[in-house]
């Protein structure tokens, strides 16, 4: 039995639906692009996933193709204010780890375990 719920989504619309379906929950979102280099931080995040708080939600979101991401007006950049991928954030809070920060286990663990 897992302490957290994992949800996999593709694109902005699916992401928003996943969030609105889980109102009131502590939501952690990991945004990944479809580029090979993105996968190197995944083991770091996956390695710390056991530290997620009980009852929280982990949304793994593929942002879309390279061309979509490169467009500065895409929804992720405009509305969610993402500046790069991968990004790991705690939804509704200013807690965010961007790019190289996602490769650091101690930072990922800090986000999952500290207030």
């Amino acid at each position, binding site marked *: 039995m897992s302490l957290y719920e994992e949800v996999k989504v593709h694109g902005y619309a699916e992401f928003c639906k996943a969030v609105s379906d889980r109102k009131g929950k502590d939501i952690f979102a990991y945004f990944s692009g479809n580029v090979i280099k993105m996968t190197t931080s995944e083991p770091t995040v996956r390695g710390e996933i056991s530290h997620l708080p009980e009852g929280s939600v982990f949304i793994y979101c593929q942002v879309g193709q390279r061309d979509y991401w490169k467009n500065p007006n895409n929804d992720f950049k405009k509305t969610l204010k993402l500046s790069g991928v991968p990004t790991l954030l705690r939804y509704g*809070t*200013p*807690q*965010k*780890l961007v790019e190289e*920060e996602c490769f*650091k286990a*101690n*930072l990922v663990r*800090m986000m999952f375990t*500290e207030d």
Partner: protein
Amino acid sequence: MGPLIQNNMAAFFKSRHRWKRTSCFTILTRNLTGKYDYDLVVIGGGSGGLACSKEAAQLGQKVAVLDYVEPSAKGTKWGLGGTCVNVGCIPKKLMHQAALLGTAVKDARKYGWKIKDPVSHDWETMAEAVQNHVRSLNWGHRVQLKDKKVKYLNLKGSLLDEHTVRGMTKSGKESFLTAKNIVIATGGRPKYPTDIPGAMEHGITSDDIFWLKEAPGKTLCAGFLTGIGQDTKVMVRSIALRGFDQQMAGLVTDHMQAYGTRFAWGCVPQRVDKLPSGALQVTWADTRTGKEETDSFDSVLWAVGRAPEAKALGLDKVGVEVNRETGKIVVGADESTSVSNIYAFGDIGEGRPELTPTAVKAGRLLARRLAGQSTQLMDYDNVATTVFTPLEYSCVGLSEEEAVGRHGQDAIEVYHAFYKPLEFTVAERDASQCYIKVVCERGGEQRILGLHYTGPNAGEVMQGFSLALRCGATLSHLKETVGIHPTCAEELTKVSITKRSGLDATVTGC
């Protein structure tokens, strides 16, 4: 008996007198070699404390920083980062910007923009945006400390002895850390008047204003509020901007009065009462008329000075000397205190400027000295600063009063000019208080002693000139500098009228 146990015995004998005072728990936490838990423990996670601890960690020291925010009288509290990030520089500048934009929107019509009347301001929108930015800075600091391997503890720190720091949680649970060196950077908090009934109960301070969920309404005290449409009155007991050049302070307040902030000069508040409506009734004595006056306000903001966060540190027990008048820690040029391995800097240091950049720099230099990497001391001279009043005022070096005091009236020359920012012309804005003053030596090379400027973007204007002062700029250097046109800053390079001449100092067109 092996060498390990012999080392312990040696440590025991060395610290025997400390054994008597500290609890068994402390001794058990020391590792077997008898060394300290940390090379450096910093009490205070503000501008100074964070800079110092991060620098020390980068230089290979084992560092811990304790940060704790005692809630204000109104219950306001905030995250890591200290005064600057949470209740000082950052929210102040952002709300000042909100006010400037309000004025800019009105000016915009003269520049052809079709903007419908009335233009109104929503406090909640501004407050949320500012508070979100502050929270992102709190998080940013957490990430930096973690990344640089600085141990962060959200505990209220105090001194147990010269090598032991006690950390306390909100609920009173204690823990102890030992350190080779201890740095105190706990800063200060706004003062409440102690002799005015109702002051603490009904009033707020800068600790609270940036975190209010609703607009403060009709307020007694605080300039930016007029700019965002709040009815504001500032009550001044004697002088405004004490410690600053008083001529410049007068220009600042004249401007505020001209733009709608009401001033009550020579008035001393006597009591604050809450009315059944919820409004606050303030009674004050007008020293100029001898009469007692009252008025009601939605909010009363006290801005009557800041007090050092030193009382609960246990300083007297450990023997750290404190200035009896100010309550601040007495420090040497190298930020040392009367106890050899304890240092203090930032707002808590006696005689230090209460500014973020000096705390940051002093903190970094201290860390380098403690790590044995440098002997460089902090230079507190010629530090430029800006007061972000509705008409901004920036300066570097001596005020005119200080220059006269140090050198004598006859040995100084003051060049000055009243100028008009180009942008004010089309906007039909009054520029009567836009002014520049260059205080320099009268003889020899005429070294510049102080520069003063009131006008738009005062901080941006002054930054480059502070470099000039650091390099020993003279009046000729200034006059030989070609200005950038059209700017306000160029007026500094064009001064030619002296106060001594008595001539009209108003700049005419180019």
